[in-house]
């Protein structure tokens, strides 16, 4: 199996992109990625588009073919990857697979979503449409799953409510130095804890925003990577897994089995352990998810992820920096783009291009979660030698 390198990456500014639609956003990131990698459109053999719901949000379907046309990449093979919020991670998996298998020698992955023209209620409903009918009819939303799980986590592990707020404070602080982030503003703990209730015990600042944006990656066999980049990153391990569609059927609601299973696959493929990871991007769509993933990835013991935040271990200058990009919390969460943007951040860290966010890292991990842990992709990357 070919080792797969990432030789170029890009992302648009995340936020409210007035007057720009899904095709505009995808093309912006796609063009920037071609430029970054020094690849011409006719070299692209496979083109994948990570996107959850352009049809539902905008009435625009067929975006992979539209993007191939807009980038002048025709006749590249193309496909849309929808795995809800983990569409980006699933796209990384598909793009990796295309190169690792030998089916493509140059694969462009572009993830994107256009959401902000919809009201919060409408966007929430589009996302909640992934739920099982017995959940949907009760008005269950992804934020309500977060509230249910957060209350149980705090109860089971005797964690203080403030620890969740500190995730938001940390990730907003990181986002200040990310020029692509939706929010580049610090928040203090008091502001987080006094913000309006959304799904108690969680409040407004425990949640990521609704976002427009796009991100892209260029992948090729490592054997030719030096032709395109002096510094590149290698996908050392990648794993994907699922959990039950009906969330309440899980034996332990504070464990995301998809995270456990996907990371075990990725660690084994990379021949690495959780202790080897220097920097991680986790899917903090809700603050509670950073605790769950940091535990289920093996970084911390079950029920102790909150202590790591309290002790500053996951700060940018801590032992294991988590969400140096600002995470979904501060950077924003354009559904199909998020998993791609997580890998973009790790790529920037491993190639030394993260600017003010730079940490010392040879190994990075990205964990992208769809639904409430329903689908997960974990990607482990190494810096080129």
């Amino acid at each position: 199996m070919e080792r797969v390198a990432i030789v170029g990456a890009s992302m648009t500014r995340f936020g409210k992109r007035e007057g720009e639609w899904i095709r505009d956003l995808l093309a912006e990131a796609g063009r920037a990625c071609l430029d970054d990698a020094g690849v011409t459109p006719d070299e692209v053999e496979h083109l994948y588009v990570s996107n959850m719901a352009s049809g539902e949000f905008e009435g625009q379907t067929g975006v992979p073919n539209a993007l191939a046309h807009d980038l002048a990449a025709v006749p590249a093979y193309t496909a849309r990857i929808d795995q809800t919020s983990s569409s980006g991670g699933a796209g990384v998996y598909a793009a990796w697979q295309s190169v690792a298998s030998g089916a493509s020698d140059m694969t462009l992955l572009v993830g994107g979503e256009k959401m902000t023209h919809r009201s919060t209620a409408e966007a929430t409903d589009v996302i909640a449409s992934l739920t099982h009918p017995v959940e949907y009819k009760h008005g269950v939303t992804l934020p309500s799953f977060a509230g249910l799980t957060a209350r149980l986590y705090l109860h089971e592990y005797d964690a203080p409510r403030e620890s969740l707020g500190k995730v938001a404070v940390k990730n907003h602080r990181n986002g200040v130095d990310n020029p692509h982030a939706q929010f580049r503003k610090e928040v203090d703990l008091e502001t987080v804890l006094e913000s309006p209730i959304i799904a108690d015990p969680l409040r407004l600042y425990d949640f990521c925003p609704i976002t427009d944006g796009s991100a892209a990656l260029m992948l090729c066999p490592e054997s030719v990577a030096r032709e395109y980049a002096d510094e590149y990153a290698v996908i050392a391990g990648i794993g994907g897994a699922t959990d039950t569609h009906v969330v309440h059927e899980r034996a332990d609601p504070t464990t995301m089995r998809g995270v456990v299973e996907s990371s075990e696959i990725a660690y084994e493929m990379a021949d690495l352990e959780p202790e080897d990871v220097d920097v991680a991007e986790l899917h903090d769509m809700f603050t509670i998810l950073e605790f769950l993933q940091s535990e289920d990835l093996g970084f911390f013991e079950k029920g102790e992820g909150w202590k790591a935040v309290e002790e500053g271990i996951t700060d940018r200058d801590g032992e294991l920096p988590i969400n140096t990009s600002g995470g979904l919390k501060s950077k924003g969460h354009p559904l199909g783009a998020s998993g791609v943007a997580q890998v973009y951040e790790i790529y920037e860290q491993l190639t030394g291009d993260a600017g003010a966010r730079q940490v010392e890292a040879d190994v990075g991990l990205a964990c992208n979660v769809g639904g409430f842990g329903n689908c997960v992709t974990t990607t482990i990357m190494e810096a080129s030698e």
Partner: protein
Amino acid sequence: MSDSDGGEPTMEAYRYPDGSITYPGHPIGPDGEEPVGTVDLSEHTAEIVTWTTSTATPPGVREPNALAVVEFDVDGEPVRAIGQLATDDNPEEIDVEIGDEVRPVYAEELREPGAGIREPASQEWDGFRFEPV
């Protein structure tokens, strides 16, 4: 799933060959086998595993929307369900705790069909809320 075909509504869970029970029922159970029977959970009480009150609700959903995951004990076999709490109180003043006992209470319409994105005919909209005992 409630069943209103003529009789009293039921909160129907499926039982599988290994004794496990799920709500909702599935064509294939956790043991990989087809179900062998049903259980009406509406005849049982349950304990609150966790709960929340959602204030940012989608179209056609009451606001605020108090929700709970509850666990029934059916002859020693645990089975969980999710549903609305039978309360419309202020979210700051919902008077339930983890471990409280609740009973299922039938509601003809849990949210307004057609107000949200899902096709109204694709699923049922009635079901059981949970009322503190």
